């Protein structure tokens, strides 16, 4: 087993945070960085199916090692009294018929590979609501961040500039300046319908801030609005980490990436330090020395690795405080609407209920998004499978009459940490390397149920105000677990007794161990997409290391 010590920093995971943004920042400062990535590289021009006639039958591609091993423990038991929150559509009826909540087909929805889950994200580029940094102090629930929005704002600017973010947000606390943003993207027909509906309901909508180019940048073209960001962007206009931070980091000549290389354990060195990591690469074992180790494997695999290695957990908080994505989507058809399959996914957003406390009776906030393209209503297969029922000549006539008239609206909301929601090592199941897999336990609290019901009500009201006569599909977090965003399992904080890392992401227990992914989030925010905050935190961490 060779021991190699040629790098200034080793990063585990090539996703949005450390693998992308921190590696870029460290390499820009002249440091030599090794990223050890468990998944493969994706070639956008080859791997993404959007030029194939059967494109609609295929989602984001899977490749060997592109999914981390997870299992599911307790996801909660359903109260039949909440059945109004059941997932259903007009073709199939109820989509889940279980007494307990079950993982959806997506489950913990992630990509393991160079670029991580930014490869399949739609590319929303959100700043966290400044008021979300002090949720516990202000509302007596959840946890505070050990830093302020003002601490992070310069790093948001850096990341937005490097990625290329387009938008024209309303001025406000989280937007002291927007001079670095690209011009706003045009709104799709369904987003415009929701914007009008929002005016009737007193809900302001605005163009979403999107990591998709409206103008060419750094050799990347502008978006051509195929609407399929979630299937992988073959053009490279979407600001996934592989075509932004990682590409720039590799251009320095200082970044090395090992793909298909799984770290199985962190090895303690002298003092309170990690000395090396061991793992498997192409079937062979390796040991890699590391002066500085940055963990960035996400809120499920990062705590798994710490628990397996039995490090950085004097607080007992590693794996605790798991927060899933609380989501709801309602969809229907609106007579007369056309071409709603064209445009940018999640092109419009409403922050009307994003401030903590703005939802009546609840501490956590939420946001709403125009989601017609994001939920896949972009081709006739989706219409025929989900929105247009029946068969025969009448069905086909309905298909021709209604295609292009779908409207979807989604709510994404705050999840409050709860002792029943955590990531642990599965007591029985191990992966191919013999390492216990991460077991996800995630139960909806009363707060989550109330917020879910609020979001469902708003979504239904928006569709009705937009002229949709019948809701034809609904789904959300009540009866199935889907987490495109996961947070909190290595919480940051000032107190080593109640948190795992400090305000810069350094482990309280280990001098040279840092964490740079969403596991450090003390709170989830009110539905903001986390990628930009992960990246801003990672750049801030990198600057701290260099300093």
């Amino acid at each position, binding site marked *: 087993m060779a021991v190699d010590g040629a790098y200034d920093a080793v990063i585990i995971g090539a996703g949005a945070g450390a693998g992308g943004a921190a590696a870029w920042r460290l390499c820009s400062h002249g440091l030599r960085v090794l990223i050890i990535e468990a998944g493969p590289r994706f070639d956008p021009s080859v791997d993404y199916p959007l030029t194939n*006639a059967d494109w609609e039958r295929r989602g984001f591609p899977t490749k060997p090692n592109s999914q981390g091993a997870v299992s599911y423990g307790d996801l909660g038991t359903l109260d039949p009294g909440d059945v109004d929150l059941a997932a259903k559509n007009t073709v199939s009826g109820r989509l889940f018929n279980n007494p307990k909540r079950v993982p959806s087909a997506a489950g913990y929805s992630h990509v393991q590979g160079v670029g991580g889950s930014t490869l399949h994200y739609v590319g929303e580029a959100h700043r966290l609501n400044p008021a979300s940094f002090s949720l516990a102090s202000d509302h007596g629930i959840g946890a505070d961040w050990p830093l302020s929005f003002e601490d992070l704002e310069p790093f948001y600017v850096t990341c937005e500039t490097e990625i290329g973010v387009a938008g024209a947000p309303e001025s406000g606390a989280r937007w002291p300046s927007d001079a670095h943003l690209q011009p706003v993207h045009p709104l799709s027909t369904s987003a415009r319908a929701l914007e009008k509906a929002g005016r009737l309901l007193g809900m302001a909508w605005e163009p979403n801030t999107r990591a998709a180019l409206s103008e060419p940048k750094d050799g990347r073209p502008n978006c051509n609005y195929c609407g399929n960001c979630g299937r992988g962007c073959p053009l490279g206009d979407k600001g996934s980490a592989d075509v932004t931070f990682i590409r720039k980091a590799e251009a320095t000549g200082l970044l090395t990436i090992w793909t298909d290389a799984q770290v199985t354990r962190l090895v303690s060195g002298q003092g309170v330090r990690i000395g090396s990591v061991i793992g498997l690469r192409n079937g062979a074992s390796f040991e890699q020395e590391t002066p500085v180790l940055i963990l960035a494997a996400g809120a499920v695999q990062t705590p798994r690795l710490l628990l397996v290695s039995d490090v950085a957990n004097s607080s007992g908080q590693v794996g605790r405080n798991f927060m899933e994505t609380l989501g709801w989507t309602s969809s229907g058809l609106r007579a007369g609407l056309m071409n709603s399959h064209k445009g940018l996914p999640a092109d419009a957003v409403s922050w009307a209920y994003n401030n903590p406390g703005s939802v009546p009776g609840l501490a956590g906030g939420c946001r709403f998004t125009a989601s017609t393209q994001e939920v896949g209503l972009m081709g006739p297969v989706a219409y025929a499978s989900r929105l247009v029922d029946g*068969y*025969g000549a009448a069905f086909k006539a309905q298909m021709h009459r209604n295609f292009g008239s779908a409207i979807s609206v989604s709510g994404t909301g705050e999840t409050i940490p709860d002792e029943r929601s955590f990531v642990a090592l599965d007591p029985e199941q191990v992966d191919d390397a013999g390492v216990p897999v991460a077991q996800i336990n995630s139960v909806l609290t009363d707060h989550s149920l109330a917020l879910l019901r609020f979001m469902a009500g708003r979504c239904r009201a928006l569709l009705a105000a937009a002229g949709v006569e019948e809701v034809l599909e609904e789904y959300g977090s009540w009866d199935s677990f889907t987490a495109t965003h996961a947070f909190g399992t290595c919480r940051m904080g000032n107190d080593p007794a109640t948190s795992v890392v400090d305000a810069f992401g350094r482990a309280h227990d280990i001098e040279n161990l840092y964490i740079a992914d969403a596991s450090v989030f003390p709170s989830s925010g009110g539905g903001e997409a986390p990628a930009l905050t992960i990246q801003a935190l990672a750049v801030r961490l990198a600057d701290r290391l260099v300093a």
Partner: protein
Amino acid sequence: MLSALAASLSGHALAQQLPGASGRIDKQTLGAYLDVLLPADDLTPAASALNVAGDLVQFASESPPFRQFLAVGTHWLNQTGRGPFHTLSLSDQERVVEWMSKADRNTLPGRFFLLVRLIGVEFYYSKPEVARAFGLNPAPQPAGYPPPWQ
């Protein structure tokens, strides 16, 4: 999606053998059944003209539970009239399918209707010939959908 649907049949009683069923998919009956679901119209051809039945059989070859389900289902269809389903008159075929469309989805007829419809429309509406009828390019790229959109 298709693999998830097929997986839902694994171990399901509805994918088990029916008395008298051979375990063979009756392709003629499957084709006739799909043409009732997806007949020709002024804009698009019938399912049979696009070999959707062949797509289902090919897909079933990769999923033993689904293959068995199709075999059992087509055998059941062939018991609904005086001859095999594909030999029935169109009106008789339509009466059978209408009844199936309203059947309990935990029974073989109801389940067969739902799953074959879902998988059938997925293959049918993926065909370039059908996409063109909706004014779509065969695929979203490389052209995309440049604005404006009205």
